[in-house]
């Protein structure tokens, strides 16, 4: 605005840009754009190799000509340790099992590294380990190596767990984030946002009771069932941090396609939708720990969907959209009103709205 417009105005004013270059902020761990920036700026330049650069949930490695392995690692720092529907132990097992399964691999072995805070009650550790045992049994994986470190009181928050998983990819299975084709259907294995809301509730941040349980679950058996009925499963991804929106954006960029969602088809539980309305969150950005997104060739879509619905963790599966050529690298949504809007990645930390 010109300075002579009005004596009331001091003209356009604006602060300097913030780049957060010097310091890690919580948003770097959100799974959104800041996390991506960190990978691009800090990790990739030093560690660069094709397996890492592929940017999938797990890395595909070829120790010899006849063997393809999927490897993934994940650290778990969730607070509180126990929340409705799960705990840090089940999360540590399922999170890594699922990442390995998202390459179509059969998860076989896990390692587990524990960082324990001095003073942690042994009973808490035993409960967490029992939960890991249960989850590993259900997934059919063995925890074959481990490590324990103890840090001084105050140097950690009770207990952190890192797990690494290895799985075998069967011949003929070709799944990866870059494999989406125009025409593919987007299938989601059930309602979104349950985990995100359950953890918020356990933290006492909701201000009301939601009775929402985390959806934590090992998805490898669901994946096996899908691969048994179709060789047209092109992409698998579990929409954890950053939610469905961020995950789909990653696929759109990796495959250079456009993803068109249908707002009316998105499965969201009423309690999750209500919590999001009150807090100003969008369920598309909430974390899930027992859901997968599958991009499947159109001819096999219905068959894969029906197969998913027969499994324990896929009963509420839905086709939520489709893949198109353009605009490349973008996720769009047809709204319930018939208009179209962009669905972007999560920027930093998800913030509750003021009013």
């Amino acid at each position, binding site marked *: *605005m*010109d300075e002579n*417009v*009005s004596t*009331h*105005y*001091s*003209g*356009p*004013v*604006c*602060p*300097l*840009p*913030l*780049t*957060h270059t010097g*310091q*890690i*902020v*919580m*948003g770097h761990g959100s799974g959104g*754009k*800041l996390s991506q*920036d960190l990978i691009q700026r800090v990790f990739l330049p030093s560690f660069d190799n094709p397996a890492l650069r592929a940017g999938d949930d797990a890395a595909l490695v070829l120790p010899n000509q006849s063997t393809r392995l999927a490897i993934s690692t994940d650290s778990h720092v969730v607070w509180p340790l126990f929340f409705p529907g799960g705990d840090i132990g089940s999360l540590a097992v399922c999170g890594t099992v699922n990442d390995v399964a998202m390459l179509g691999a059969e998860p076989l072995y896990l390692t587990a590294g524990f960082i324990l805070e001095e003073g942690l009650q042994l009973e808490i550790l035993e409960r967490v380990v029992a939960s890991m045992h249960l989850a590993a049994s259900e997934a059919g994986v063995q925890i074959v190596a481990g490590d324990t470190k103890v840090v001084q009181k105050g140097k950690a928050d009770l207990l952190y767990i890192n797990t690494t998983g290895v799985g075998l990819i069967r011949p003929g299975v070709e799944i990866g984030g870059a494999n989406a084709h125009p025409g593919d259907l987007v299938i989601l294995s059930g309602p979104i946002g349950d985990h995100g809301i359950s953890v918020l509730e356990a933290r006492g*941040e909701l*201000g009301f009771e939601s009775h929402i349980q985390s959806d934590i679950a090992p998805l490898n058996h669901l994946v096996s069932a899908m691969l048994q009925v179709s060789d047209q499963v092109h992409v698998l991804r579990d929409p954890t941090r950053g939610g469905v929106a961020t995950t789909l954006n990653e696929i759109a960029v990796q495959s250079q396609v456009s993803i068109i969602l249908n707002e009316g088809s998105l499965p969201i539980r*009423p309690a999750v*939708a*209500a919590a999001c*309305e009150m*807090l*100003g969150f969008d369920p598309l950005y909430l974390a899930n720990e027992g859901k997968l997104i599958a991009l499947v060739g159109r001819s096999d879509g219905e068959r894969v969907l029906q197969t998913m619905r027969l499994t324990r963790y896929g009963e509420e599966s839905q086709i939520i959209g489709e893949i198109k050529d*353009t*605009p490349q690298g*973008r996720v*769009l949504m047809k*709204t*319930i*009103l*018939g*208009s*179209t*809007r*962009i669905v*972007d990645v999560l*920027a*930093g*930390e998800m*913030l*509750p*709205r*003021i*009013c």
Partner: protein
Amino acid sequence: MKYLTEYRDAGLVHTLVDEIRRTVKRNWVVMEICGGQTHAIMRYGLDQLLPPEIELVHGPGCPVCVTSLELIDKALEIASQPGVIFTSYGDMLRVPGSGRDLFSVRASGGDVRVVYSPLDAIKIAQLNPDKQVVFFAIGFETTAPANAMSVIQAEALGLKNYSVLVSHVRVPPAMHAILGSPENRVQAFMAAGHVCAVMGYWEYPPIAHQYKVPIVVTGFEPVDILQGLLLSIRQLETGRFETENGYPRVVTFEGNRPAQDVLQRVFQECDRKWRGIGLIPASGWQLRSEYAHLDAETRFSVDQIQPEESPICISGQVLQGVKKPLQCPAFGGLCTPEHPLGATMVSSEGACAAYYHYGREAYG
């Protein structure tokens, strides 16, 4: 969800759009005051459904966007001090001051906590008697009553370790400022329903008459917004300039009298700087002298902080409806939600953020 689903009904939306199409004859510029309305418009793509004669411009009603750089810098200074627990609504953590934000303060060791209500800040103060607890009291008439209530509660509880950094702003003076500007293009207002739920709309008829603009109290769901727009267009096409209530299920003429009483008890009018706009006389609220001892600015001696703001982005024009986010050369390039140049890109209610997230370019 009851009271939500029916106001997002596609059939009703299209009926209203058809009626707007039938009603509109000439070109009109209508401003929605509130950032919540802007987001609903972008999120549901309502602008795509409207006839080309209607241009919606986005108003200054985003509390995060208009909080002055000066206040943010004061907040950053207070939050950095040892022994302070700084509490704020979540949105404010990412708003840049002169070179950093509350996230950075937290990363550097400051105790910055997100609260959902100022009464949570009161609880924190009770639980931490050895710490100074400060609440960042920002916002329009909507958030002001709860913030005022926290002041009354702190007084009643005799809390010596609670104070508020007050940055309250009021809608009617901003409407005067927009309409009084020679660059003004706004021909009708959709007034902010939540503000009116507290204040009523008795302040608006004099504005409508003085500037000859229709003012329609409007809600936040697609059906509400289109209803408000239809009433505005009907007035414009028939040459009327009245104050109408398009949100009667929530808003009454008088508003919430007990809430207004609390406001009167705790706050008094003051001049206030708006980020991107500048000083608007009598556009803010500050603590009355009886509560001055709860003013964080005095308690932490930050009243001298007066930063220079650099003219990079156009958030000022965006907030006044003179320009749209896409007309900014920095939009989407230099300025994104992760690296915002202006507050309109920061808040989930900011107009630039709404454009960025939901519709930053034309698509098929």
